[in-house]
Every structure is written in C-alpha cells, then in structure tokens.
C-alpha cells in the first residue's frame, strides 16, 4: 500500500492506494468511502483489511480521507457535504489514473455509504456496496448528540466532577467541533428518497433494522440487481458502551470480497 496526497495542492486529500497483488489485475477498481469522525477511528483497521483482501483478489483499491477529516487538508470546522462529494469525484479520477481500470465501484461504510449513494447520481458506478449505511441523516445526528451527552455525563461521574460547562459545548461531538452547516446537511440526507444509480448493489448489515429492510425493498424497486447479507455482530453503532470498540467483522469483510469476486448470482 502506498500513502500519498492528491487533488488540488491547496486542498490536498490523503489517500492510500492498494494496487492489485494478484497475478492478473481486474478491470474494476474499488474506492472505499470511510465513515465519519468517531466511527472512522473504530473502523479504520477493518477497512484497511478489506482493502488488502480486495487487492489480493485482483482489485486495485483507493481509500481516502474527505476534506477536513483524517489526514486531509482542512480543519474539522470546515466540513462540507458538497465538498465531500467533490472529493469523491476527485478520488474516482485519481483511482482511474492509478489503476487504468475501466470501471469503478464504491464500498461505503455508515455515512460513507450515504455519500456513495449520493455520488452515484453524478458519476457512473458499477457496484455499490452499502455497509451498515446511515439511512436517515436526522436520526444519525440525533443519535450522535445523545451518545456524546451520555459520554460526558459518564465521564464526569468517573472523575467525580459536577456537570462542567467546559465539557458541555454546542456542536462538539466526541472530540470534533462540527459546524452547524454540516449537521443540517447530514440531517437532510434520506437514502429512502435518494435515487441510487448503479449496475449492482450489495447491502451488508450487522443489525436487523426496519430501515435496512425498507432500503432493501427500495433498491429492488429501483431495479438494481443486488444482494443482501446480514451478519450478526456486536458492533453496536448506537451504543455509548461500545465507543472504544475497534470492530472487525470478518464475515462482512469476506462477504464484500466474495461479492466483488463472484458478482450477483
């Protein structure tokens, strides 16, 4: 794997390219869209493993940090949904240049899956993998706020401090100061109202939720050939107790690799 910066030199994006390590390279390259903030750190290892496995199976892979996240340029307070979508387009171009692949597919995890669905309206995507996708942005933001407040209270109990004004700040979530604009942009995202365009879709989830069943039905309605995989796991995205858990569900990772290798039956 090769770490590098790409894109506009004033807004450089950090990415890691995994060239195919198989004897023959596939004509399809894979872009991985990370989740955001706290979830990014929980899943970084799983995504790196997925990228390695895909590369071992002949698929060149690029994973990258959106502007103002991870190692890419920009302060967290500059996060912008539109900028992230432009970043994904830049990353797709970069991946095509690096790999000379004719087709690009996207694997998106959590809000990365929502971004992947949104970008499919602008750019041709072959396969779209939605891994525990954020289906409803409003619920996602509300849950993030609730978890942060629960964590603050839990922490203050541990350090035997009264509720402290220094720790309870607006727009501060798990070590990130987020601009109100990004919170409202994310809140407006609703996958069940988003026209998804892709040749194939693969929905893989670690919880059985009504919203995932609805999304599955919605993808079927849009006549996208697809597959669905449920792998029971303790990943617990909505649990404050699981915040520190670095979760690697091997069956999910393997399921995605198999989807790329074998396609939709």
């Amino acid at each position, binding site marked *: 794997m090769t770490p590098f910066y790409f894109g506009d030199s004033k807004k450089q994006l950090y990415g890691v390219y995994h060239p195919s390590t198989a004897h023959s390279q596939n004509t399809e390259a894979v872009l991985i869209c990370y989740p955001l*903030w706290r979830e990014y750190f929980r899943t970084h290892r799983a995504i790196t493993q997925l990228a390695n496995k895909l590369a071992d199976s002949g698929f060149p892979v690029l994973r990258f940090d959106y502007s103002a996240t991870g*190692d890419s340029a920009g302060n967290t307070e500059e996060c912008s949904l539109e900028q992230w979508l432009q970043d994904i387009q830049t990353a797709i171009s970069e991946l095509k240049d690096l790999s000379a692949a004719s087709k690009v597919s996207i694997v998106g995890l959590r809000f990365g899956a929502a971004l992947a669905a949104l970008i499919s309206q602008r750019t041709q995507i072959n396969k779209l993998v939605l891994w525990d996708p954020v289906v409803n942005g409003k619920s996602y933001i509300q849950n993030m706020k609730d978890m942060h407040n629960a964590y603050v209270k839990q922490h203050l109990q541990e350090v035997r401090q009264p509720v402290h004004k220094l720790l309870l700040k607006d727009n501060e979530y798990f070590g990130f*100061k987020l601009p109100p604009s990004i919170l409202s942009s994310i809140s407006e995202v609703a996958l069940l109202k988003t026209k998804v365009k892709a040749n194939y879709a693969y929905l893989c989830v670690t919880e059985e939720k009504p919203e995932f069943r609805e999304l599955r039905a919605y993808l079927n309605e849009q006549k996208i050939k697809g597959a669905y995989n449920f792998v029971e796991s303790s990943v617990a995205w909505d649990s404050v107790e699981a915040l520190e858990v*670095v979760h690697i569900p091997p069956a999910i990772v393997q399921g995605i690799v198999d989807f790329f290798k074998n396609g939709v039956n």
Partner: protein
Amino acid sequence: MEKAFSFGQYNSMAGILTEPGTPGQNKQPIVIILNAGLVHHAGPHRMTVELARTIASQGYMTFRFDLSAIGDSAARKSRLSYEERAVDETKEAMNFLSSLYGVNKFIIIGLCTGADNAHRVAVADKRVIGCVFLDGYAYPTFRFYLYRILPKAHKLTQKIVNPKKWIHLARKITKRITARDNADTSEYMENVYWKLPHKEQAAKEYAELISRSVCLYFIFTEEQILSFNYTNQIRDSFKNLSFGNLLSVDLFALSDHTYTFMSQQKLLFSGIKNWLGANFPNKA
C-alpha cells in the same frame, strides 16, 4: 503543507511530515508523534493531526507515523517483541528524517502506550533530546496515597499552618491500608495499561536521560487518578534524582485519557506549545 512518505525496511511504513508554516531554525529538532495504542497516525479524534499542525505552525517540523501492523503501515515478520519493534521502527523513522533533512535531534510525543514507547526510544537513542509523555509512567508516593484516601486532603494541606503534624497523623492511618492499595494499583497498571517498569529501573533510566539533558514533560489526565494525583509526584518518587528544569509536569483535572473534549485538547496543545517554546526556542 504535508507530505506522505513510505519509509523504513521494505518501504513498508507510512508517515506524514508537516512542514512549518514559516521555516524554522536550520537543524531545529523534529517532533515525532507516536501511535496512541492501536489508533492510527491521525490520533484519537484526529488529535494527532491537529497537534502536528499546531506544532508546525510554531516552526517545528513534525512527523507522525504508524508502527508496523498499525494504520497504514504493513505488518512485518519479526521475532522481536512489540516493545523492541516499536523502538527499532522509531529509530528507522529518525534515520529516514535524518537522511532527508540532516537533522539529528528529535523530540518524541506519545500517549498511552505511545508514552511507554517514547520512554524506551529516549533511553535507547541519544538523538532524542526531549519527550512528552501523555499519561506516562507514575509511581505511588506517600502523598499519592494520602490524596487517594482522603480526596479533600490536597485542599486541606494548602490551608494547614503546620502540615507536618497533620501528615504525621495521616501517615499512621495510611500505613494500615497502603499494602492493600499498592496491590490494587499494580494490578490496574498491569492489566489496563502496560507493565510499569520497576521503579529502580526507571530511576536508572531517568538518571541516564538527565545526564544527557533530555527535557521531559509529563502530562496526566484525571482518568489516571489511580496512578497519579498531584503534580509533584514524579519529583517525590525519585528524590535522589536532580531533574531541575529538565522536568515539567501538568495534571489536567477534567480530561479523559484521549482528550475527547475540545477545551482539554486546547489545554494540551497550549501546554506542549509552551513547553517546546521554553525548552527548544525557535530562533528563526
């Protein structure tokens, strides 16, 4: 401006260099930030990125990288222990930076196991001239137990006219439970954190660092209350050592271990900036 590098044996390690906004003094030491446990080089809550950029804006070149099998660095086949590999690989990072920039002086920053590794690297390599340990090693002292047993004692001692009499009384009480507490603390340190080196070994290593004039900055969070609870604890733990101005210590009473809260991150960044400025002034 940041640059991504592959370096080290087989070019298998990944690191990012943050260049100073304004060029620093020629041969200014380079600051290296180590992994905090298994968290990759961006650090918990992207804190390492923000810290690197903050430090660089003060004129210090800053490098953050992943040890092998962490983050964007590939795994390596090695018979060495994790601790030995961490030292070797940090030396590889220093060799790489030396070859690029001709700099042979480094300051190492580490959180959690990163602090543990920073200590080992500093002892093992004379190019290290400064270290920041975030929730690093701490050894219990009489006052530590006192404050632990009587949470209000710290405030009280500040008000008592003759603290010696009060401490004499407290010593009698604490003697009875010190042994039990000692066992609790050791178990905590071994199971939750890392294996704390024997105090004698640590004393020997600190003496070596002092003889080399390595500046040491310890910052503890309130979450480490089971191992550290007052700022003079390190000096009290090693009374035979003359740290002098080489030692700086801070205790951030509201912070959790990974600085989740922005106000505490700001305190941390400002503490490190001030420490760097005081001990390694940028003469550009």
